[in-house]
């Protein structure tokens, strides 16, 4: 284990070549020039656009891939995203928690952990990006995509629990790597090979995603926010993204390399608090302008149908909304299955039903609040040129002028917790590929920290392209494998649902409380 002091000097060493470039037009620009072509290439490779018939709009194939899967799952499981909500709520509340298993990971804890990985910048910055690029209508499609995405989450998390492995040391490993390789292996030697390939591809993309959207994007957006509240372009920090990146990398490193768990534990307690503050502030703004809400919804609807939208008619707006939703809720991406698989249950479907709430809270509730605030405040029109978290910040500031400071803290916390969560997902994939030992783990963690610095130094456009590309790419192997596993999930669901309807799931609360 590296001590913090040694770790700090390591970081400074890695920053040395960058400072040599300082004379030639700023370190940030140098880093950006260096990385942009590469990230642009990755972006074009994975987000290759398909032209939409009848319009000049384009939709990335991967977005279509996610939507088709989500729609298919919704019908195949007969609207589990609606009928599972009641049971899911009772499971989260702990009605069926077995008191004899007290001390294990509960449904609530699994959901909260998964949420801390997804609620964050996708909701705050992602919505702003969707509104500024696609107009208010994009939000409607985001919500619809979130609703359909609930079915994808259900499938992923059910499979994550079903094919998890309990290691000899008593720890639990689960996620797409396991259900793709093990699940498909059950279905014949041909599919076993496909499953193995899918699992490896998933692991590679997940590592990429953990460097991209879950890391560089987070570092980038939290830097923007900090610069924003410390004086914008005049801020002393404005052209020192690398410095901010180093500081952030240091704090991430304290947890993932230094093993200082207490920080992670504190973060995991602050993040829900931040989420509550954010939602409350959003609701306060919405209620103080309650008379504008119907108009805002009308604007969203008309713009969603392409009446006066900016980006190539209804289909163009739809593509933007769906893409941001996929990035925000990560439904169909497979990442959350890693977090959900540690839950204590004998019934995989029970966790799948709980996981429905993830896109629901993340994409439908939080994104709608953000969107309403942005639209009601009119910031998406006045704030021309602004995008991402800046726009959201300005929208909140137009009603509560000191809110950007709170938002800055919230963004930092969200970014930090997302980075910690994803560093774990990425690490699990890394060790799946390269084996579990100290050296391979340290290599991954060092790389992870270097990307934090890069992310804070780059321009938003370059970062978003790369981030989206890597995270969305995970959906290819993940969903491809899942299609072959659907009968398994269906069997599990039918059995569990029958038990539920026969009243065989006895709420434990009623025992011993007569």
């Amino acid at each position, binding site marked *: 284990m590296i001590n913090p002091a040694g770790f700090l000097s390591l970081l400074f060493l890695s920053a040395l070549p960058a400072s040599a470039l300082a004379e030639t037009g700023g370190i940030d620009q140098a880093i950006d020039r260096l990385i942009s072509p590469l990230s642009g290439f990755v972006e074009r490779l994975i987000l290759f656009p398909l032209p939409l018939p009848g319009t000049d709009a384009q939709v990335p194939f991967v977005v279509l891939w996610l939507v088709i899967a989500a729609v298919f799952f919704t019908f195949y499981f007969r609207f589990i995203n609606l009928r599972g909500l009641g049971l899911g709520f009772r499971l989260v509340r702990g009605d069926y928690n077995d008191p004899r298993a007290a001390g294990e990971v509960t449904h609530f804890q699994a959901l909260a*952990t998964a949420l801390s990985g997804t609620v964050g910048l996708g909701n705050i910055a992602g919505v702003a990006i969707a509104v500024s690029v696609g107009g208010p209508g994009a939000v409607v499609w985001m919500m619809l995509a979130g609703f359909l995405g609930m079915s994808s989450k259900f499938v992923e998390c059910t499979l994550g629990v079903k094919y998890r492995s309990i290691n000899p040391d008593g720890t639990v*490993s689960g996620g797409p790597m396991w259900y793709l390789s093990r699940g498909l292996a059950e279905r014949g030697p041909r599919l076993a090979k496909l499953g193995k390939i899918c699992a490896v591809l998933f692991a590679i993309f997940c590592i990429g995603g953990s460097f991209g959207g879950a890391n560089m994007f987070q570092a980038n957006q939290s830097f923007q926010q900090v610069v924003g509240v410390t004086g914008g372009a005049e801020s002393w920090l404005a052209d020192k993204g690398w410095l901010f990146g180093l500081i952030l990398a240091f704090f991430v490193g304290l947890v993932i390399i230094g093993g200082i768990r207490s920080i992670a534990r504190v973060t995991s307690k602050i993040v829900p608090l931040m989420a509550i503050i954010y939602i409350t502030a959003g609701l306060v703004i919405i209620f103080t302008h309650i008379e504008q809400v119907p108009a805002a919804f009308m604007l969203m609807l008309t713009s969603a149908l392409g009446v006066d939208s900016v980006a190539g008619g209804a289909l163009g707006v739809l593509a933007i909304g769906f893409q941001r939703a996929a990035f925000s809720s990560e439904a169909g991406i497979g990442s959350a299955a890693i977090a959900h698989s*540690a839950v204590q249950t004998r019934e995989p479907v029970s966790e799948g039903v709980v996981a429905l709430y993830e896109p629901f809270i993340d994409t439908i509730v939080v994104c709608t609040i953000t969107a309403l605030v942005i639209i009601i405040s009119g910031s998406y029109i006045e704030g021309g040129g602004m995008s991402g978290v800046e726009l959201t910040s300005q929208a909140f500031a137009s009603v509560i002028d000191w809110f950007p400071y709170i938002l800055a803290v919230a963004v930092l916390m969200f970014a930090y917790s997302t980075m910690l969560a994803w560093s774990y997902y990425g690490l699990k994939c890394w060790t799946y590929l390269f084996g579990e030992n100290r050296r391979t783990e340290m290599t991954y963690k060092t790389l992870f920290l270097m990307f934090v610095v890069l992310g804070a130094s780059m321009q938003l456009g370059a970062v978003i392209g790369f981030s989206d590309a890597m995270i969305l790419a995970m959906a290819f192997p993940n969903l491809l494998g899942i299609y072959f596993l659907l009968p398994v999930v269906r069997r599990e669901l039918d059995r569990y649902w029958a038990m539920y309807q026969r009243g065989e799931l006895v709420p434990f609360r009623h025992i011993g409380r007569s």
Partner: protein
Amino acid sequence: MAKIFLLGVDGSECGERALEVAADHVRASSGKLVLCYVIPWSPFTFSTAEENAERHRRREEELSIAMTKFLQPRAKALGAEGLDVEVVARHGHPAKTLAALAREYDADTIVIGNRGDTPLKTRILGGTATALIQISHCPVLVVP
């Protein structure tokens, strides 16, 4: 009639005094003693993915430490003088779990030390003993 005494211990000095009191009662009534150790835990806390992955192992470790460090040595000492002693370790909210265990073991009296929690927690939230008095279905003997 043999009475069942359920004792909550937490390793504190006060808990040890409660143990002596409970043992006296058990001797006097030639009853049975159920020794409980509750590991504070809530199903609604927030944890990291890594903690969750290790949770299963941690839980086993915590239970085994409670058993070997606290419960079994004491049960052994009391068992040596011929008392009927049973031990149980469980996770949960201390007061609620003790009350639930009392039902489970059909206890006649719960014995508990007055001061196990930190003074701050007692002052703000009320101690385990106070809470137990409120929710228990059987008499609670609080030992100062």
